[in-house]
């Protein structure tokens, strides 16, 4: 049985990685999962300098999901290079580094500092709804997305994955802009902007007022967008949004994703990623699937 997949020339032994920001740099999850059983570990977004993130409360629960406005707190690329990356290289897994910034220069700066690092792939977060500058501003306008993609691509040694925002009218327009700008792969979806109000306190449930909705609640929206993007561009897709079981992962693959990321579900079960890897194998055995690529985009 072959579960390996190829994202822009980087081979993952199985299609399962984690969604940026839900898994730190993997360290804390080693108590629960052998990182070597994952196709890749995707790290929390890293900027050129440390970011303090947003005030608390940063999260709230929503029906079959959650809202977060962490605000991309991160220790900065220096610490990341010294501490997080060397730790990850101890495992037999691919490393996808998620990159954030406030300006094009910030992104380019991080990408250049990662050039000679063991990072296999760079995922460019131009879709975070929780920061005032950068983030989603690049991800909601095709021209801006094209520009930033081009700049990052020129600066990057590793293949780049542009992470798309679902908060747009037409996701295929954004996917095409990223493709035209030189993206090697796409990942989607980031969170959908939401709001929750504590009616007894007459206050917003998260300090940032709005937050990004994630989890099973948004899965049908994510599957739809992956399907649309898979039809619109030729790039490999890392699909995500509410994946909590192997069945969910297979749903994204059948919609056209090459690999999948597991995010919020890690909070309900810290060992869920390993269970999903195993569940995909079981499904393939039961259904007589030799190679995972047989089912990629198989619904018509």
């Amino acid at each position, binding site marked *: 049985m072959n579960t390996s997949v190829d994202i822009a020339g980087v081979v993952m032994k199985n299609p399962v990685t984690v969604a940026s920001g839900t898994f730190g740099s993997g360290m804390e*999850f080693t108590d629960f999962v052998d990182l070597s059983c994952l196709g890749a570990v995707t790290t929390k977004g890293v900027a050129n300098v440390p970011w303090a993130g947003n005030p608390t409360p940063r999260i709230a629960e929503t029906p079959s999901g959650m809202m977060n406005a962490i605000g991309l*707190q991160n220790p900065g690329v220096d610490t990341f290079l010294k501490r997080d990356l060397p730790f990850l290289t101890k495992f037999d897994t691919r490393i996808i580094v998620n990159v954030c910034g406030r300006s094009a220069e910030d992104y380019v700066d991080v990408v250049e500092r990662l050039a000679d690092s063991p990072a296999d792939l760079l995922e460019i977060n131009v879709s975070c709804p929780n920061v005032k500058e950068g983030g989603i501003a690049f991800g909601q306008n095709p021209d801006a997305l094209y520009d930033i993609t081009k700049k990052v691509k020129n600066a990057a040694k590793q293949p780049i994955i542009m992470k798309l925002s679902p908060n747009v009218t037409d996701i295929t327009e954004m996917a095409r802009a990223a493709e035209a700008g030189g993206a090697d792969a796409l990942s989607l979806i980031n969170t959908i902007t939401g709001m929750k109000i504590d009616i007894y306190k007459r206050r917003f449930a998260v300090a940032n007022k709005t937050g990004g909705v994630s989890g099973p609640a948004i899965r049908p929206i994510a599957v739809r967008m992956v399907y649309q993007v898979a039809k619109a561009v030729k790039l490999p897709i890392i699909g995500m949004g509410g994946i909590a079981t192997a069945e969910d992962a297979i749903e994204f693959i059948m919609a056209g994703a090459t690999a999948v990321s597991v995010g919020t579900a890690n909070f309900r079960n810290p060992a869920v990623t390993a269970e999903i890897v195993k569940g995909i194998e079981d499904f393939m055995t039961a259904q007589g699937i030799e190679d995972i690529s047989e089912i990629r985009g198989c619904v018509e």
Partner: protein
Amino acid sequence: MSKAKYRAKVIEKERLSGDIYSLLLNVGPEVSEAVPGQFIDLYSEDKSRMLPRPISICDVDKEKQQMRIVFRIAGAGTEEFSLKEPGDEIDIVGPLGNGYYMPEADGNECHVLLGGGIGIPPMLYLAKCLFESGIPKESIKTVLGFRDADTFLAGEFEKYSEVYITSDNGAVGIKGNVIDGIKEYGIKADKIYACGPTPMLRGIKAFTKENGISAQISLEERMACGIGACLACVCKSEEVDDHSKVNNKRICKDGPVFFAEEVVL
């Protein structure tokens, strides 16, 4: 891979007062590591509720591999747990976090435990561990702050400590908060250990700073991962934190117990 989510069996359920429940759980060998001030994450059976509920460890019996938790019904998750009956099961992860730093047994120091409202439960296991470490009962003093006459757990502290009561409305004990309690009962504290609402902890931080008393306080914040990965549950730290490289500490991983001087409230 030393940890995992596992199903704990409910051994006993008790309603302690209005909306406060106690559950005794059969847990795994993980319990042998449990220290006072740590918490466990409890998971809802209902699939619409994705996030774990952090609840402090109220007591532990390492031999029987049992753990007790005491909680207030605050919403749908805790309500679900309150409906559990002996024989039912709950998914849990833990113990998690860093508990209270345990002092050397020293008969001359007075250890004062301050618990406010639903911050009271973790103090019970702390009182027990201090007592069992050899500190004489007279040197362990617990001040419990309640809203009103609806008290809970107070009697159980008497096994390990001297117990003083305050209440917001004066219905039981001294009228006021736990700091009013320390003052009015004339308690001389060398070390303070506290858990309760933020305004109370803020008061304790100021009081202990003023009086040069070492204080450990247990903080609370909404959590997602519970293990230090998602950065949901941070508090502000006085110094740049070594992990975050900013003035943020993770309550779930670096805490929930901090020395008062470490954090900004």
